[in-house]
């Protein structure tokens, strides 16, 4: 059984992007369907507002498409993609965009694997709310690092490239972030 899929997947993204560069929009569609979820979820957790997250995600993919002519597969495609997403998220946070949208820390559709009782649902929601608030309270760069590390399962080296800092700086960001989260979420254990 072939185990080298990770590298295959990387090359495949770059290849798709090169095809977009050659004028094949279908390949952009494949990249979009592959990454629209991860990018929106990352932005949602980053800015804590679903509408703003989707608006920013549109901008991310629009920028990727517009930059196709100058695309060079020097870095992993996802590194480039998340660098754009992070840049836009940080700008939006600086401009106070999520607050302007009204409902920060918005709730949303819960899709648990079964049908929990109303009481279980309430407990679940209040715990979820604590997690959201704990993440929201992190300084922006720590938040970005944790989201990429935890939810996107990215490696330190890749997070470093996205954030434009050294690997040891990433580890230090993550250490502080996890320390803060632990203090805030200890009672959930």
């Amino acid at each position, binding site marked *: 059984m072939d185990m080298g899929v990770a590298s295959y997947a990387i090359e495949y993204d770059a290849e798709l992007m090169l095809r977009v560069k050659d004028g*094949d*929009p*279908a390949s*952009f*569609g*494949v990249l*979009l*369907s592959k990454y*629209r*979820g991860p990018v*929106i*979820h990352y932005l*949602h*957790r980053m800015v804590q507002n*679903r509408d703003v997250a*989707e608006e920013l*995600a*549109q901008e991310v*993919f*629009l920028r990727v*498409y*517009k930059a196709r002519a100058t695309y060079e597969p020097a870095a992993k495609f996802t590194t480039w993609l998340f660098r754009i997403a992070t840049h836009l998220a940080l700008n939006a946070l600086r401009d106070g965009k999520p607050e302007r949208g009204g409902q920060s820390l918005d709730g*949303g*559709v819960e*899709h648990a*694997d*079964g049908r929990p009782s109303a009481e279980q649902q309430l407990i*679940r929601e209040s*715990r*979820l709310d604590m*997690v*959201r608030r704990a*993440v929201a309270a992190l300084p922006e760069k720590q938040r970005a690092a*944790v989201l990429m590390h*935890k*939810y996107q399962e990215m490696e*330190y080296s890749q997070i470093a490239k996205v954030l434009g800092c050294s690997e*040891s700086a990433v*580890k*230090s960001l*993550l*250490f502080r972030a*996890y320390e803060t*989260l*632990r203090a805030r*979420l*200890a009672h*959930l*254990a």
Partner: protein
Amino acid sequence: MECPLEMGGRPEILLEPGAERHAAECARCRDWLRNLETTRQALDLWQPEPVRPGFDRALWQRIEAEEARRWWRPWRPLAPALAAAAVLVGAVILSSGPEPRPLAEFAEIEQIEQTLSDVQMLRDLGLTQPL
């Protein structure tokens, strides 16, 4: 290895692969790593919400608008002449060949194909049985 949690140590070393070896003989670091695992599990509570339908369509519309604008800019002074020519060309195409396909359509069918094959996989693995 010196204890990363000691004063003046580099605690972020605990996030490196070798940390378990040190933790095996250091209760404090063992504790820290266990807490890290619990914290990360707490974060699992925050599952993502489904992407709302219409996202792709809106994006393709923006891309098309953008493309049209870019293409159009240098030609603006020649607008009337170009419009007449375009109408003529359009008429010829409509009466003879297949109509031109919009950009979005190219991408759409491959996404649909991918979705169907993913759905097939999930069903085939028995993962979609209602519980």
